[in-house]
């Protein structure tokens, strides 16, 4: 294929091996393609020393609030309109900008550090015929890179060759798709042959292939490309790629050609965009702030009109006032007064609100980090709130979307039980850690990692009494695709499936040690006796067959077929009168109830004649066309796997993280919808769903076919309920009433159909809303994020995503709240998460305790703050009616400056930091309390509007009671200013006191300090000394001396403040009387023990048998062709000569 046709195919990404200038050239000459090839540097930081100041200022002034305050400062600098001096706003504004800027800078530095840590990871790059140690950031497109064993791959590479035969190599993709089994990647035959025959560096250095492939994209499982080399055009696909983020395993070296680097790599393309997260409360609050600002503008306009009218009336008079009308023009005066009023009313929206808000958020985040209950001793890792502005959102979560591998499960599979010939060994009800280890000292190969106690089984095995159990273990040791690698005189198993590894490992512990395999032989040690089985055929696993078999010739000469697979498949293939079938089915039931993953093991003796017949057909099939062959093979395999004799059942536990089922149950009780999104197979996911109580044993699984029908029906919800009802009717009449017993199970490809039918989204969500849970399997990171987006789009709920790997990064970023589990490896999820901790179960504390408290504290804080600042500032409207709309302030300027910062800040901060309506223990015991917090936005609007209304009332009282007292009296303006200030301050303090429910020593101290500060600062600003220094700034000299001893001032202030808080006290009293407060309820009922949900029902439970190897074909093909069997005794250098001939493979035994 020529280059032109490649172009038309969309293969426009050209990579020339070992040709750095080519990739660089493009960068400089064609400036519009500058950066066509990204370098391999991860840049998540934003600032450089030069750009920091402009960027941070630009960013900060994008916040409407900051811009507004800047405007206020500018206005206040204009003498004609400045109703309060300019320094009253600029100091807090500068403080806000500085604090915020420093915070951003610190965060950016942290990002820089983590970036440079990643960028400076070592890797070997081929530079002029030799590999030099370089760093990740030095890798360029077209470079040849050498990867060592257990190294993480730095860029998306095209595998050229490896140290293994056939240039095979193994990668672990846990960071990409969450699957832990090893994947095989194989280089092109051409590159393998050419590049491994010579000394590798020379050959690689002269390699000049040109790769044409797709533009960088985010499709993890596809790759299209061609390689033009030595006149040949070779097709490349996904199998040839080593993706960035995967880890090279069991392969000493792999050589790759960098195709995509840095931001072009598939995993980074899947990472999604970093988005600034904002809590819903903040959004609502911002809207309220905008509302306040608009109302202030409107009120100022009305007052300005009043001022114009007043001025024009005054103009017709003689006296002093007409001369004060600016330029003798009432309209102009009105115009100036407009701005003056904007300034005067601006304290209604004080800048300190934003400072305090941020401070409160920070403290709440610190509390999360300080929580001992969320500290993980083993890893010495406390919880961490990386994003400090999402705390209250934790109290409103409606959807929990969780990753599976590493998040719900520990990624450890343990052989816990088995049933041989109807007899059950081991006890799964004992925790794995508590299992008494058996004495296996007789077994030199034992490594002591068997979590099953069955001395009777060992006795039987060693006593040679029970042929069935011996056969059972032979089956385990023979029927698999595991590879053995010898390390320090013990075999180390490398399995494509963790299940198989667990099974083979268990067999080893019990004395049936799998030693090694070649293409034709499997060597095992049976209780110390080494036996060599000839491998005649390997009937591989497929997701359709759900079983695998090996056909072996025993050393004695007999032919045996060992088969293992899902129970349904095996049970229907048994001999008609198979013994133990009934007891085995009972065991299956038992294992299923204990949420163990089961496999049935069976055996069949194959007569020599039928084998010959069968193998003949098999050989014939080898020459047939692919599709026909597959069908024939299927049939052939079917024929062979018949008439089986049941040996037993294995039961494997997929270890859950500690406390997962309890946490999920608790969260569901708290009204959360729990969804699981995993890249893993459906069977595994469903199994885990059951074991972590996400799926009820008697819940119905709604799968794609059915769901599709429902979605396509004209009235989806009705048909959904109908479907559910009929189903339930059949199972149990009484269950029909019980809701939420349906769970949806979907897979990635099915979800992809949603892209074509966007109208399904809303319907799906409304159906999902009625389901207990939703499981999405085989989804890519991007799809995970799409699901989150779907939920966000169609519900108002807050979504929380939790995950641990790089494959969860996108969804963590997309969700309202992203939680990263700090797992054993890979900090990617944590890096991008808003909250990070080590154990899934900490989630309950994060949400039910911290989230709930934060929500309550912050909503109290906001409500109170609005009340106190608006109530205090709006007084000027009413005063305006009596001073000719002249924008005269009713307060001393110093009082305005100090009111929010000193006189009323401390108590509300105490509320925002210490307030607890319910103790942490009760919060966890009464998850229903959490439900109240998941209210919609509307109620936030209502409560905020109510507090605004209350503030208006307060301002009316604050003005009109003193007005009545001061009307036609000899008391002057300044005394009235002090009186109203006092009343406002008292009212704010009384209100906060009656909101506080949790009186710590700090709250009490804050209250006293506020009073003290008010009196001290007032005396100071009214002192003679300051007046003498600057008479024009401290002209209130001597007022407080007189006012603070005047009983009228005190009586007025006390009456006013009490009247201000009267409505709030009354409404609170009504709540107390009607006992509507959660608080009261909890305290009155807390002695009653709260029952956690009882263990899940064990009714007609379904058997869950599955086999956790990759979807699609297993690795059997590679074994039978012996491509992956390597020679461990050969030194690396000689390996270049290894060919595919099986004779080269030495027998370890």
């Amino acid at each position, binding site marked *: 294929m020529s280059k032109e046709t490649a172009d038309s195919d969309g293969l426009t990404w050209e990579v020339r091996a070992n040709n750095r200038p080519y990739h660089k050239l493009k960068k400089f000459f064609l400036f519009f393609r500058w950066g066509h090839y990204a370098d391999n540097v991860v840049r998540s930081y934003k600032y450089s020393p030069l750009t920091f100041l402009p960027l941070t200022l630009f960013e900060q002034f994008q916040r409407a609030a900051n811009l507004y305050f800047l405007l206020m400062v500018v206005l206040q600098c204009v003498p004609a309109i400045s*109703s309060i001096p300019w320094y009253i706003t600029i100091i807090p504004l500068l403080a806000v900008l500085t604090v915020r800027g420093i915070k951003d800078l610190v965060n950016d530095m942290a990002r820089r550090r983590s970036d440079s840590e990643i960028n400076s990871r070592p890797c070997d790059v081929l530079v002029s015929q030799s590999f030099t140690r370089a760093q990740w950031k030095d890798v360029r497109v077209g470079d040849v890179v050498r990867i060592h064993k257990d190294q993480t791959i730095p860029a998306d590479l095209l595998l050229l060759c490896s140290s293994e035969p056939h240039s095979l190599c193994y990668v672990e993709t846990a960071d990409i798709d969450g699957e832990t089994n090893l994947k095989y990647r194989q280089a092109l035959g051409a590159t393998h042959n050419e590049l491994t025959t010579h000394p590798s560096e020379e050959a690689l250095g002269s390699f000049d292939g040109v790769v044409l492939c797709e533009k960088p994209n985010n499709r993890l499982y596809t790759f299209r490309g061609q390689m033009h080399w030595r006149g040949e055009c070779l097709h490349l696909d996904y199998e040839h790629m080593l993706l960035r983020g995967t880890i090279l395993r069991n392969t000493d070296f792999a050589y790759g050609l960098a195709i995509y680097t840095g931001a072009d790599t598939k995993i980074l393309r899947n990472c999604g965009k970093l988005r600034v997260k904002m809590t819903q409360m903040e959004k609502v609050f911002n809207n309220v702030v905008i509302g306040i600002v608009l109302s202030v503008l409107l009120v100022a306009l009305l007052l300005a009109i009043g001022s114009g009218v007043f001025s024009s009336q005054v103009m017709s*008079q*003689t*006296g002093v*006032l007409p*001369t*004060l009308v*600016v330029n003798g023009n009432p309209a102009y005066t009105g115009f100036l007064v407009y701005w*003056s009023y904007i300034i005067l009313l601006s304290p209604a929206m004080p800048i300190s609100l934003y400072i305090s808000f941020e401070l409160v958020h920070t403290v709440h985040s610190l509390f999360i980090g*300080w*929580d*001992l209950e969320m*500290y993980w001793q083993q890893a010495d*890792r*406390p919880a961490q709130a990386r994003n400090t502005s999402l705390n209250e959102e934790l109290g409103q979560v409606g959807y929990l979307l969780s990753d599976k591998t590493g998040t719900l499960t520990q990624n450890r599979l343990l052989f816990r039980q088995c049933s041989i010939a109807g007899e059950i060994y081991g006890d799964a009800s004992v925790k794995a850690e508590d299992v008494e280890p058996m004495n296996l000292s007789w077994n030199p190969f034992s490594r002591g990692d068997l979590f099953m106690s069955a001395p009777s089984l060992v006795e039987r095995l060693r006593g040679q009494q029970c042929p069935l159990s011996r056969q059972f273990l032979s089956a385990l040791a023979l029927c698999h695709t595991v590879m053995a690698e010898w390390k320090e005189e013990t075999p180390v198993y490398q399995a494509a499936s963790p299940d198989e590894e667990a099974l083979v490992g268990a067999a080893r512990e019990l004395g049936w040690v799998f030693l090694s395999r070649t293409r034709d032989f499997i060597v095992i040690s049976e209780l110390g006796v080494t036996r060599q089985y000839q491998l005649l055929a390997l009937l591989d696993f497929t997701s359709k067959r759900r079983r695998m078999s090996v056909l072996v010739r025993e050393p004695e000469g007999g032919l045996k077929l060992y088969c293992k697979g899902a129970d349904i498949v095996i049970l229907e293939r048994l001999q008609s009168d198979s013994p133990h079938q009934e007891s085995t089915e009972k065991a299956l039931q038992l294992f299923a109830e204990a949420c163990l993953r089961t496999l049935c093991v069976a055996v069949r003796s194959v007569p020599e004649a039928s084998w010959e017949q069968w193998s003949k057909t098999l050989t014939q099939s080898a020459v047939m066309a692919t599709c026909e062959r597959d069908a024939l093979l299927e049939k052939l395999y079917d024929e062979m796997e018949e008439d089986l004799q049941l040996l037993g059942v294995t039961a494997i536990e997929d270890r859950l993280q500690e406390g997962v089922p309890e946490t999920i149950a608790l969260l569901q009780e708290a009204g959360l919808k729990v969804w699981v999104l995993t890249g893993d197979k459906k069977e595994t996911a469903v199994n885990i769903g059951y074991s972590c109580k996400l799926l009820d044993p008697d819940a119905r699984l709604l799968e794609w076919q059915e769901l599709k029908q429902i979605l396509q029906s004209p009235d989806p919800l009705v048909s959904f309920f109908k479907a559910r009802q009929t189903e339930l009717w059949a199972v149990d009449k009484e269950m029909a009433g019980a809701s939420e017993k349906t769970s949806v199970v979907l897979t990635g490809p099915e979800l992809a159909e949603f892209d074509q039918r966007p109208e399904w989204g809303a319907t799906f969500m409304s159906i999902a809303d009625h389901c207990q849970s939703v499981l999405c399997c085989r989804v890519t990171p991007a799809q995970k994020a799409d699901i989150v987006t779907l939920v966000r789009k169609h519900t108002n709920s807050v979504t929380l995503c939790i995950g641990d790997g790089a494959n969860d990064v996108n969804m963590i970023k997309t969700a309202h709240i992203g939680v990263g589990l700090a797992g054993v490896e890979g900090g990617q999820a944590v890096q991008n998460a808003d909250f990070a901790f080590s154990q899934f179960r900490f989630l309950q504390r994060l949400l039910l305790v911290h989230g709930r408290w934060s929500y309550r504290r912050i909503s109290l804080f906001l409500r109170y703050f609005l009340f106190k600042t608006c109530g205090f500032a709006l007084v000027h409207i009413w005063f305006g009616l*009596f*001073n*000719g709309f*002249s*924008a*005269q*302030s009713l307060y001393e300027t110093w009082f305005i400056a100090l009111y929010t910062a000193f006189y009323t800040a401390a108590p509300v901060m105490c509320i925002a930091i*210490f307030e607890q309506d319910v103790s*942490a223990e009760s919060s966890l015991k009464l998850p229903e309390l959490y439900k109240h917090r998941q209210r919609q936005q509307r109620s936030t609007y209502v409560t905020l509007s109510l507090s605004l209304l209350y503030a208006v009332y307060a301002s009316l009282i604050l003005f009109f*009671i003193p007005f*009545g*007292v001061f009307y*036609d*009296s*000899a*008391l*002057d*303006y*300044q005394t*009235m200013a002090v009186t109203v200030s006092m009343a406002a301050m008292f009212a704010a303090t009384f209100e906060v006191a009656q909101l506080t*429910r*949790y*009186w*710590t*020593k700090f709250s009490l101290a804050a209250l006293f300090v506020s009073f003290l500060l008010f009196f001290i600062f007032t005396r100071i600003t009214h002192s003679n000394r300051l007046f*003498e220094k600057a*008479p*024009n700034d401290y*002209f209130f*000299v*001597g007022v407080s001396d007189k006012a603070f001893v005047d*009983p*009228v001032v005190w*009586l007025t202030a006390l*009456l006013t403040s*009490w009247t201000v808080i*009267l409505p709030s006290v009354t409404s*609170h*009293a009504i709540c*107390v*009387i*009607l006992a*509507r407060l959660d608080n*009261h309820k909890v305290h*009155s009922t807390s002695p009653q023990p709260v029952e956690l949900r009882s263990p899940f029902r064990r009714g007609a439970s379904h058997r869950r048998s599955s086999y956790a190897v990759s979807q699609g074909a297993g690795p059997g093909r590679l074994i039978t062709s012996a491509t992956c069997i390597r020679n461990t005794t050969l030194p690396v250098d000689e390996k270049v000569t290894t060919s595919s001939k099986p004779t080269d493979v030495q027998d370890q035994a």
Partner: protein
Amino acid sequence: MATSYNAKDEDGHITVSGPSGGTLRSKKPENTAFKQQRLPAWQPILTAGTVLPAFFIIGLIFIPIGIGLYVTSNNIKEFEIDYTGVDMSSPCFNCSQSFSWNSTRPCTCTIPFYLDQPYESNVFMYYGLSNFYQNHRRYVKSRDDNQLNGDPESLKGPSKECEPYAKHDNKPIAPCGAIANSMFNDTLELFYNDPNGTKIQIPLNKTGIAWWTDKHVKFRNPEGNNHNLTAVFQGTTKPVNWRRPVYELDDDPENNGFINEDFIVWMRTAALPTFRKLYRIIPRKSSMVPTLPSGNYTLEVVYNYPVRSFEGRKRMILSTISWMGGKNPFLGIAYMTVGSVCFFLGVVLLIIHHKYGNRNNSADISN
């Protein structure tokens, strides 16, 4: 409901100090009551039993206070006379026709009045103005506190805030600004018409009417010790509307210039457009004789201040005072009202409690 967590804390500390004693510093959070959010706290549990009495108690406190204030206010004797001269029949009608500040000839009017009660102890004499926006921002700002504090520089160069009353004929105005310019300049004199026919002038104290801080701190003449104020104010001019320069306000050097108490009282601007200011104090002569016995009086007004130009009113007020100052019925009434409202709310809440409260509570418990 204060709870102590001391025991727990100690336990925690032991476990913390144990493993972290090594060289490696553990990241384990400290087990302090603050960090674990277990601060001992008092959580008042409010019930109907505690809330309801609060309303009645507040009501029972406020109503007596209100009654006390109201009675005190009512015991204050106050006499008010409007001498604006709006009516044709008013003696000051003629004088009020002049709208000018500087009519060359002072106009005098005499108003007779009758006090039906004797006024005991000190009697305070106020002038009251209505519809005078002394709290207008541009008016309030129109002064220079530096100048009034005796700053020589500000005397010669008044602040911009004083515009347009900063300079006149290129000479700085002392005192500058609109407040000073519009100073109240009526002269009020009080005569007692003895039943035997003689007219006795009542002595009026013109000192002691300003605040101590104002007189001694805020207002100072330039070159404070120099009693030759004429020389001190050399080079300045009087406010446009004034008849006399500031250094001729009084003969007493302690009450002249910027520290003239009438001036100081005027400069302390009022809060609202209707206000009164202390004008004179009539000291009591002895405890035996009332300061102002009941009978006929005459108020003689030198009518200068043109309030009709802004539709204002002028009043003269005689008043005794109590511990709460002058007459102020509003505060007493307000206290009584709020007290009654609290009481009423208490009753309403009691009814609610009896009708709904119990049932709801029992429902909760049964849950």
